[in-house]
């Protein structure tokens, strides 16, 4: 589950002057023809660097994203929900595994990525720094955060890097279940008892502001972004994803008689664009830099899982083993 916000930062590799012009032209022509890039191909440093950053953040978002819904894994009501909640959270861990592997093909090891995650050096999707207070919060995450993630991931699956596309195809297929499961749970709550309805509306109110920041701030078009779009690393702007999400899901929220806690939210029929209150980007920045309600806990849990599992990994380590990057 990943929204794609705040990924592309300028790096010192921005300068394409240092790249071999013939190879660069071949590389760009391949992408322009609609071919995928595979791990052993020549690629510009900027392409490699930005892909690693993006896929790694996506992977971290999956493994940390398992925690807010994991909060309710032991308390899911009834067999149907209990099994599905387990499977759903498990899938997020599975997605992390797929994505770490895709990033590894570009040359960063899983060990390095996990170290950077735990030490706060690399980011993950900001929404997972918010708490899931009730079972209803978990349902809202399953439905709407996954919905947002699918919008982003469907776009990225059409990107140019083969291993990432392959992973995303699998992930999108699995998330079709998450989305339906989440919607099913929300519909049951919204059309259920007054208490259930109250719970789901309260959860929606809590989660709406983070959801609106899920796709990241408006993109400032720079030559940098243009390059990444030409290379099919970035496939859609943050605003395009946000608009698409609102288009698809606001009607589904409204048809359940639920309200969205933003008096300014409406579709402008002339422009075809949704208008909304600008999310609090200062809060977004504060939280993504570590000062959110759950940042410390999320990382502490990940750290503890790694530390307490270390004896298992140490015990099975084969000193003669040689690490080779996964092939595809």
């Amino acid at each position: 589950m990943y929204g794609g916000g705040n990924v592309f930062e300028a790096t010192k590799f921005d300068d394409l002057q240092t790249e071999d012009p013939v190879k660069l032209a071949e590389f760009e022509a391949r992408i322009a023809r609609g071919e995928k890039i595979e791990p052993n191909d020549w690629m510009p440093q900027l392409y490699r660097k930005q892909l690693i950053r993006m896929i790694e953040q996506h992977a971290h978002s999956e493994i940390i994203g398992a925690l807010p819904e994991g909060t309710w894994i032991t308390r899911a009501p009834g067999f149907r929900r209990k099994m599905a909640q387990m499977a759903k959270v498990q899938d997020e861990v599975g997605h992390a595994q797929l994505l770490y592997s895709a990033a590894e093909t570009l040359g960063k090891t899983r060990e390095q990525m996990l170290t950077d995650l735990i030490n706060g050096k690399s980011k993950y999707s900001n929404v997972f720094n918010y708490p899931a207070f009730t079972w209803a919060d978990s349902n809202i995450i399953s439905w709407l955060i996954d919905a947002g993630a699918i919008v982003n991931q469907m776009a990225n699956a059409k990107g140019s890097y083969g291993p990432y596309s392959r992973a995303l195809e699998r992930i999108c297929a699995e998330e079709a279940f998450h989305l339906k499961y989440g919607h099913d749970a929300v519909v049951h709550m919204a059309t259920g008892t007054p208490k259930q309805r109250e719970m789901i509306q309260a959860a929606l109110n809590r989660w709406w502001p983070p959801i609106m920041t899920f796709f990241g701030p408006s993109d400032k078009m720079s030559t940098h972004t243009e390059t990444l779009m030409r290379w099919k690393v970035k496939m859609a702007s943050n605003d395009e994803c946000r608009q698409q999400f609102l288009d698809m899901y606001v009607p589904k929220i409204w048809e359940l008689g639920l309200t969205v806690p933003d008096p300014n939210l409406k579709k402008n029929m002339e422009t075809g664009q949704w208008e909304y209150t600008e999310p609090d980007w200062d809060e977004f920045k504060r939280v993504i830099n570590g000062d959110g309600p759950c940042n410390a806990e999320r990382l502490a849990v990940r750290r503890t899982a790694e530390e307490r599992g270390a004896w298992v990994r140490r015990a099975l380590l084969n000193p003669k083993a040689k690490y080779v990057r996964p092939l595809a």
Partner: protein
Amino acid sequence: MSLTSLDPRVTRLNLPEGEAPAIEPKPELDQFETYEVFHQKKEGAAYTYVGPVHAPNEEVAFLFAKEQYSRRAACTGMWIARTEHIQVTPYAGDGENVYDMVRAQDPTEQSEQPEPYEIFHLKKRGKAHTHAGRVMATSYQEALQEARNQYGDKGPIVNVWVVMSKHVLQSAEEDKDMWTTIPEKKYREAIAYKVMDKITKYKEEHKTTAS
């Protein structure tokens, strides 16, 4: 003081509260080496690449691969090969045939007797490698040449993987029953969740009370 969480499982972990110092970088192989996984979707179908797993050895790799790559889709068999054991050709462009590009090379290592090798083809960039067949050879290089002779003219092939059969762990025939119930686990399929009735009913009721 330990951390109290909204998640009772986290509370039970007894995590220390407060800032923790940065961890040492994880040592090399903390996450083990990698194995590549191929699955068979249905009886008789060619084995297809699904992705890697990190594992300390082949048998644990199988345990991991089975749940990571076959819990969500029909499966009738699985093959596992250590990444290190797979030899990879360069990649051709889409529509090209990589066999036209690779020249015969001298073997780096040779066996006395011919041994079986498994050949996997990638037909298009971005897709998955699929088992093309098995050849007998005394080296990887010879196996590639054999593969070219036997399977090299079947349309565009952008990449080839070659691995000695003895390095491929194949799930056993008698273990097929481990996969038989997968299609029945509907709770993790989108199709199991149908709520239109509830939504329609809600809208109907809402209409009457509103009018």
